[in-house]
């Protein structure tokens, strides 16, 4: 069981959601996060001072899946989330030791 964590652009969310649905990924969790870094955030002004927001608002998706599905999901995410411009984001894969469905107590693949 693996957990895929993808950090994507706000503006690509609908595309990614639909692409995931198309390959039958039925559940995922989303968190609003802030991406800090050299990328420089939005260029803003306020009362005459202009500044770069030091972060860009981003979305982090977490998808738990069987190991063998990782490749397909990552490929799907890349296809849907990519603009080709700097700032498209990253995808991590982390190992999950155990997954349990709260409703039934099932673990492993059945819990998905």
């Amino acid at each position, binding site marked *: 069981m693996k957990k895929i964590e993808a950090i994507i652009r706000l503006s690509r969310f609908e595309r990614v959601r639909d692409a995931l649905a198309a390959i039958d990924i039925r559940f995922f969790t989303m968190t609003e996060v802030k991406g800090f870094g050299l990328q420089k955030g939005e260029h803003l*002004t*306020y*009362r*005459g*001072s*202009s*500044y770069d927001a030091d972060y860009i608002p981003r979305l982090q998706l977490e998808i738990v899946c069987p190991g063998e599905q990782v490749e397909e999901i990552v490929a799907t995410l890349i296809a849907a989330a990519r603009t080709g411009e700097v700032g498209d984001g990253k995808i991590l894969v982390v190992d999950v030791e155990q997954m349990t469905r709260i409703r039934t107590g099932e673990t492993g693949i059945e819990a998905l």
Partner: protein
Amino acid sequence: MNEALFTANNLWMLVATTMVFIMHLGFASLEAGFVQSKNTVNILFKNSMIISIGLLTYYMYGFNLMYPGVNEGGVFGFGGFGLSLPAGESGDIAYAAGAYTYWTDFIFQGMFAATAATIVSGAVAERMKLNAFLIFAFIFLSVVYPVTGMWKWGKGWLDAAGFYDFAGSTLVHAVGGWAALAAVILLGPRHGKYTEAGIRPIPGHSMPFAALGVFLLWFGWFGFNGGSVLSANPLTVSLVFVTTALSGAAGAFTAFVSSWFLYKSHDLSMVLNGILGGLVAITAGADQMLPMQAILIGGVAGVLIPFSVVLFDKWKLDDPVGATSVHLVCGVWGTLAVGIFGSLAGWQQLWIQLYGSLAVGGFSFAMAFLVFWLLKKTIGIRVSAEAEKYGLDVAEHNMRAYYR
């Protein structure tokens, strides 16, 4: 003078009073919108208490300090504590030649009083200790505002000298603005505002509340200026409405244009401050100007705003809501404008406007500086760095402004 005209006049003064009251809500909203959410309870608290302190001190002695009825042409006078309705006719229609009653006189002027302290409240936001601020507001409203007010409106020396300030560009706005400047100097900037890497703006947390505040202030200004006619005289009050509306509109427009040229941005906070700048500037001569002159006065104010905001920032004078730019700079400009435009214009008048403005400003600045300095040396005026980081809402009020 007949009963009906008396009633209509007095009615206008009372309605204007409620509109000036709403300005306190305007200030509270504007300042709340322009601070960070972690300091919102604090600013609302200060604004609530200022009205309370303002009205109570004005009742106790402020009114009789500002309108002592004695020592005409002087610098100080006191008419006694509390209020008491003059007996007979002189407490009724004869009190102000049928323009308003004694009670109306007090309540209209009392609503004005608190305004000056509110201006300071915004400038010291996000870092000043609550108790120190409340003590300052108490002293300022007890001593500074009524005394300088007496100089002109209470028939003191400036009035005798021919100084003109219709509704308070100087006596309310610049008085507050100068005190704000003193406070900002002694208080220092918010942490993280002026860094080695340059100015790091600390944006206000809610533009809707800021805009709400400005619209309410504009609304209230019709009562602030219109009520300063001190009767419902149709021609004068309606002229004041026209000049007030056009000056605010012009301030918005030129702030929009100039901030576009200066910063290539359509900065809402500048347009909002531009409106206020135009309103402050017309206040000194709202009854003396033709519409086109009102547009010029407001238009200049709208251009002054973006420059002055940036200038104060360059001098590292950190004023979260722009009170010094709006009330001090445009208050001085509006006072001088009475000598430049309108029916009083002339070198002689300009000179009087200038020294009147400096005299009032100097006194207000000096007194405010003294009070803040004493407070700084005794109980301290600034919250700890930790409290500032965490926000005054939790640090001073054990509350948050927002919960989900």
